[in-house]
């Protein structure tokens, strides 16, 4: 009789982490957009703070997801029928992480040096740059998610196939 595989397989660490940065980084970008478009002028400050609270852990979790994804890659690349999708998934995941990391570094610099004279001169330009980085990151995070879904739902990446008679569940 077959036995059910463990839920603590190396390749399953990736789905454990990956959904956090997807949500955090998308909502961090939406918060930034709300602030820049001045949609709720009375709540601008608190929305910006909320956006930053989502951005920083989102970036850390994005890199953890890249790392766990690399671990999963070594397992599933030998099993799936089209590893080129996996490669694109990995490439766009790196790009997403770099875009949001750059945005986070600029935001952190802004928090630390916003009162310095030299920084105020470039601040307006950086504000636009951060928005572009995060909007770009939001696009790529969507595409990375789409490729991840293709790997799971079209190629069963890391998915256990139960036996025909389901005996392992008895």
């Amino acid at each position, binding site marked *: 009789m077959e036995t059910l595989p463990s839920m603590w397989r190396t390749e399953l660490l990736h789905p454990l982490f990956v959904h956090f940065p997807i949500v955090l980084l998308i909502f961090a970008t939406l918060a930034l957009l709300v602030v820049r478009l001045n949609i709720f002028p009375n709540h601008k400050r608190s929305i910006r703070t909320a956006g930053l609270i989502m951005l920083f852990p989102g970036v850390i979790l994005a890199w953890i997801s890249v790392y766990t994804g690399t671990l999963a890659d070594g397992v599933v690349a030998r099993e*799936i029928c*089209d*590893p080129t999708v996996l*490669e694109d998934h990995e490439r766009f995941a790196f*790009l997403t992480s770099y875009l949001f990391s750059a945005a986070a570094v600029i935001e952190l610099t802004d928090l630390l040096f916003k009162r310095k004279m030299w920084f105020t001169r470039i601040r307006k330009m950086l504000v636009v740059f951060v928005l572009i980085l995060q909007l*770009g990151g939001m*696009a*790529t995070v969507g595409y990375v998610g789409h490729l991840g879904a293709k790997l799971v739902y079209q190629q069963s990446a890391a998915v256990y196939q139960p036996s025909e008679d389901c005996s392992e569940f008895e």
Partner: protein
Amino acid sequence: MIFAAILLGASSCGGGTDVVESGSYEGTISEVNADEQEIYVGTADDKTLELYFTDSTKLVRGGSPVDFSVLEKNQKVEVTVEKVGKRLNPLKVEIK
């Protein structure tokens, strides 16, 4: 426009690999990933093959089997691959 530019830029960046028909190919190892037992081989016609070793992959030098750890960048190899879907299974890797 931002989205399109970023997606286009990323997709046109290097690092892509190629899928070839089953057969033997001569080339040079461009990268060795020992953790994942994986190598990248650049062929003479400018294609990059990403090969994940399996239990059935034979690795030989001078007709004798050798360990994965002997593989290194810039080594000349002849690889025999089997195309399954778009996956390349390395059946044999011979170090030249």
